[in-house]
């Protein structure tokens, strides 16, 4: 059971820092600079212990759980944080779950200190079987295929890639792009606070890059984590986009009164408030059920949290533009920051349709006898 006081302290602390770093004018300046990652904030994330929140103590971590991580993800979403936090902590979790001690010792402290950005191929693709091929090639391994949708991989020192081996099993590899001769292509991404890249590979890699164990189980684990994280990021963004919109409805005057006094707009605002409450509750419930005491439905709840949270964010952000009217359509205004982040959230780690189908499969799987 998560400690609610600790969670609220974490939230307040994170909000103070993020508000200071990322209030709208500063975020706008960052975006105008053309940079992909806010290095200053990335250092803060390390110093404040966010990158090591869930890591074991021996690697400088705090050993906190999903509920505490969810708060950080929600606050990062709220402030549209332009840092590769999610892919990096997912790789760290994969290291903890699957890597030999020596590999953990090599990478976890670096990750915790903010010296190692990491990215990963989508665990949703792994679960769905959309995978590059892995073959034994003498003492080496040969990896061939396309890996799309790498989240924020610019400057990544580590890349977790799922592949299918000759026996048809899902395996996980921990590549080091710099030394493995792996070139990531960065996509010009509409989202202004994160980016995606892809990998097209047909080459040999050292055998020690292969992680032991069942890659499919690891992918399932990371998929649940990623779904909760993106659900939380989305709730944070949706809440703030909505707050800014309500504020706008109160101040923008037309026909001699605030536009928020018109019932057509009031009702839209009320509908969004209901949607946010429901989606927020679903995500929070999914987070609560992902802990060690879950009754086996954590994956189902995570899938529901993913599409419900991300779709809610996309709708709130879309309506924010409409409710702002003309200024909502301008590059200078903030509305599109939220919309673009929301639209990417919907696509990352399995889109909403895929997650609805996943929830359907999990819910209707024949109960074990």
């Amino acid at each position, binding site marked *: 059971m998560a400690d609610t006081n600790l969670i609220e302290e974490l939230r307040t602390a994170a909000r103070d820092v993020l508000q200071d770093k990322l209030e709208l004018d500063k975020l706008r300046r960052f975006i105008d600079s053309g940079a992909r990652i806010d290095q200053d904030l990335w250092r803060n994330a390390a110093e404040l212990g966010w990158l090591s929140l869930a890591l074991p103590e021996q690697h400088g971590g705090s050993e906190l759980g999903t509920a505490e991580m969810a708060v950080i993800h929600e606050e990062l979403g709220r402030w549209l944080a332009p840092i590769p936090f999610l892919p990096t902590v997912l790789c760290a979790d994969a290291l903890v779950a699957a890597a030999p001690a020596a590999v953990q010792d090599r990478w976890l402290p670096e990750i915790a200190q903010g010296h190692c950005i990491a990215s990963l191929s989508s665990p949703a693709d792994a679960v769905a079987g959309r995978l590059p091929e892995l073959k034994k090639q003498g003492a080496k391994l040969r990896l061939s295929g396309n890996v799309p949708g790498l989240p924020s991989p610019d400057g990544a020192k580590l890349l977790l890639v799922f592949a299918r081996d000759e026996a048809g099993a899902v395996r996980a590899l921990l590549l080091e792009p710099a030394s493995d001769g792996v070139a990531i292509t960065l996509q010009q991404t509409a989202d202004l606070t994160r980016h995606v890249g892809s990998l097209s590979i047909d080459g040999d890699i050292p055998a020690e890059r292969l992680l032991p164990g069942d890659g499919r189980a690891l992918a399932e684990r990371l998929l649940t984590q990623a779904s909760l994280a993106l659900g939380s990021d989305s709730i944070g963004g949706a809440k703030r986009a909505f707050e800014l919109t*309500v504020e706008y*409805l*109160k101040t923008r005057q037309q026909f001699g*009164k*605030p536009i*928020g*006094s018109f*019932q057509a*707009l*009031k*009702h839209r*605002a*009320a*509908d969004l*408030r*209901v949607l946010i*409450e*429901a*989606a927020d*509750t*679903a995500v*929070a*419930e999914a987070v609560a059920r992902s802990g060690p005491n879950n009754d086996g439905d954590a994956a189902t*709840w995570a899938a*529901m949290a993913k*599409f*419900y949270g991300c779709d809610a964010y996309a709708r709130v952000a879309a309506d924010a533009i409409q409710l702002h009217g003309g200024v909502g359509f301008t590059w200078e205004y903030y509305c599109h920051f939220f919309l673009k982040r929301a639209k990417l959230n919907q696509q990352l780690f399995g889109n909403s*349709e895929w997650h*609805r*189908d996943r*929830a*359907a499969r999990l*819910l*209707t*799987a*024949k*109960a074990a006898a």
Partner: protein
Amino acid sequence: MSTNHAGNPQALPRDNVILDKRGDLAAFRATLRGWLNRNVPKNWVERLARDYDNEYPRVQRDWLAKLESVGLAVPHWPVQWGGEEFSIRHQVIIYEEFARANAPGLLMFSISHYHVPATFYAWGSPEQIERYVKAARHGEVWAQGFSEPNAGSDLASLRTRAERRGDKYIVNGQKIWSSGAANASLYLLLARTDPKAPKHAGITMLIVDLKARGVTIKPIHQINGNAEFCEVFLDDVEVPVANRIGPENEGWKVAQSTLSTERGLLIFNNSERAQMVYERILDRIRAGSEPWFEDDQWRREFIQGYTELQALRAMVRRLLDTVERTGAVGETPPLIKLHYSELQQRLSELLLRVAGLPGQTLDVPPVPGNFPKGSPYYDYLSSWIWTISGGSNEIIRNIVAERMLGLPK
């Protein structure tokens, strides 16, 4: 039991087997479940299907007597009024187990067991409490006369007149949407006593004997085939001044107490019973007997609705948790009302669509209660009960926008 007003003559011997377990929630649940297994009348649904008009009151009264015998008729009531002051946690277990056992529930007594005590607790005179509260507990049936044909969302514009003549009020007017009035003997009535005062200020609450001369009750035939709501015509009905609840012209305030009765558990009951309907559908999907689920669009729509239902259940549990911890309901009730009612409408509409042409039959289930029954057309039509009553959703949206979000009037 002295007079006909209690209407519950066959009092059963009291048995504390369930109440004794109240200190241990798991044991409480297990004992309740065992008791329900032995005591839920096996054939009650069939009895209602055979002869609803006669069997419904009978089944309700028998079930009330059974529940009274184990102290579970009004467990939420204060101890001095014969209740158990049960925590929300205990009540949640009761509702969960009732839903699981498909128990009849006490719908016929919902005004008697919720709105009546809430009203008298705040405003009743000692004589009124003595006369009415215990009888309401034992099953004297009340109905509520608030809405009028021209006073729905704008309730305070009501026009039913109560004119003072000596120690009586003479009441004339028409009420509508009185749920269960056909089976009720007493009426919580809002009437206008001062037509010159501003509309909220001239209203008084009265207790009306529905068997009195000048009262005519006409059930309204509804679009879902039921006739649970009634029109009530009041034609020179004499009401003793002693039947006034609270001061004259303070009826609007009294009504706020009436309506403050905890609705969280009602929605909890409905959402848990809805969950059972959808669990049964999932079972049939697993068994391969719902081929529509193979259709991508229908499957995804269903999963969307199912997810929103899980969000609802979590929202309601959080609301109850807030009540348990703080004694106040917090700000979510209007959000839950909007979410629940519109979700119910969407999901039932989906199930009607997937039912195809065979679904184009209005099968009115014999069991009353405003929660999904798994009968697609009926559930679909009944969903408007929730979007219109309890403040139409448009009124609730105004409340959310103005009171919660602070948007200007």
